[in-house]
């Protein structure tokens, strides 16, 4: 379970967004109540399979089934871990409207990625790594968009480049079960069924491992949590 990043404590210096005391208290309260609401609505039971919650620097990568995914994973983490964890979300969805933008930026402290306008000198991976610094963790969905059929699609290469540039970060597979029935693609009213979030044992990029091999291994790690 040890990794070079283990030395980082939760009391790490606060990054952007935590400067003023007033909005932070409000955002914390909003965050806590939203986490509780998300847990209640999705009836999520949380399993840690051969792994433990930890405040060390991690990338949680999960299958993508619903708009609720990021919120539910985020709320499944213990409070101390949650405060250090930033979801990666699509800019085109999360910057639309005042409420969504406020939620994404202030409450979830999300990193918004522009899916439509990816530049070479401003790659999403560089942006993510710059934003997380040496303390924060990430929640990513390597499939890129929500699955229509419920099958777990091929992973995009971002996860590989993340692992290559920061090989010491723990990559934790996460499997989300049944959340696509709570809020399927194209629906806005949730049905309060029970879902299950499974966190698996961390993995790392092996020395000299080819991109496709690594992505396939990561994808199979998520699928393996289905049982």
């Amino acid at each position, binding site marked *: 379970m040890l990794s070079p990043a283990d030395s980082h404590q939760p009391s790490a210096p606060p990054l952007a967004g935590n400067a003023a005391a007033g909005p932070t208290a409000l955002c914390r309260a909003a965050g806590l109540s939203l986490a509780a609401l998300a847990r209640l609505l999705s009836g999520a039971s949380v399993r840690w399979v051969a792994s433990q919650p930890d405040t060390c620097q991690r990338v949680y990568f999960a299958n993508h089934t619903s708009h609720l995914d990021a919120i539910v994973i985020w709320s499944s983490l213990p409070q101390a871990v949650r405060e250090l964890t930033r979801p990666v979300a699509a800019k085109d969805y999360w910057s639309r409207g005042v409420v969504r933008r406020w939620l994404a930026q202030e409450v979830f402290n999300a990193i918004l990625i522009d899916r439509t306008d990816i530049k070479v000198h401003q790659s999403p991976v560089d942006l993510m790594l710059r934003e997380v610094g040496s303390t924060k963790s990430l929640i990513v969905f390597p499939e890129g968009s929500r699955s229509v059929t419920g099958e777990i699609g091929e992973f995009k290469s971002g996860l590989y480049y993340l692992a290559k540039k920061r090989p010491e970060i723990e990559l934790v597979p996460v499997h989300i079960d049944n959340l696509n029935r709570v809020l*399927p693609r194209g629906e806005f*009213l949730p049905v309060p069924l*029970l879902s299950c979030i499974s966190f698996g044992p961390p993995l790392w990029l092996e020395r000299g491992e080819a991109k496709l091999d690594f992505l396939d291994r990561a994808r199979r790690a998520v699928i393996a949590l289905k049982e």
Partner: protein
Amino acid sequence: MNDIRTIALITGVLTLLTAATAVGQFLKRHPDRGLDPAAVNTFNLRLRGWWIMCTVLAAAFWLGTTATVVLFGLVSFWALREFITLTPTRKGDHRALFWVFFLFTPLHYVLVGLNRYDIFSVFLPVYATLFVLARVAFAGDYKRFLERTAKIQAGLVVCVYCLSFAPALLQIQIAGAAPAGRSANFRLLFFLILLVQFADCMQYVWSRMLGRRLVAPTVSSNRTWEGLLGSATSTALLAAVLWWAAPPFEPWQAALAGFVIAIMGFAGGMTMSAIKRDRGVKDYGTLVVGHGGVLDRIDSMCFAAPVFYHITLLVAGAAP
């Protein structure tokens, strides 16, 4: 709730639970008594469940009729959640399910709370059914249409409609009982819950002791005809002994009610086993178990409550 019968009933149950807990703890500490440790563990888990059930029920009774109706409403909501999670649905069912959860279930309990028997007795079986059929049709997905709508319908009837007859017992007018205190009605509900739990236990005990012929080996590997008969007889006996607790009943009527409650409870258990078997415990079984499995706890109650309600109505000879 300050009459002698209620106090006697509550004291009796508390004494029984305390004694059982003492025995359970003793068996846990002394595993050398030749008893199956798994059975002892199950027994202790069951007991813990009953303590929780008793505490919550006592709180609801103390707070009054409305609180009890709300409590049963929440239990129904959670049970329906487990039921629908267990059964596969398609995307075309999503909107229908939304209204089932957030409109029909709460509204039904509001009608129960208002004692509108004339409406709540048809609201879910007729109007919710029509709505679900039409809403799924409007969604445009005709694949296995009847199968899907039947699943939603079965969930609503078992988890919501049937269970709601338990708190509806609080609204029955009993001749001779003071309408203000309503402690007689609370005793009726308590009587039902006690008998259902007792019948469950007796079924287990008789099946283990004398069980030979399984009712349906493919559905349940521990429910036997001997268990059913033994449980029905012992529950009838207990009901006859406790007849004084259930206001409108003569001893023989109470015994008959107990007999029917045990059989209905058994039927409920069998039904839920069949559904779980069909889904394969692997699927969402683990998930529901992690949540304590409300549906597992109330399956017998769901089947027994409406029958007991109507027996009481018949015996009391009054409109609800």
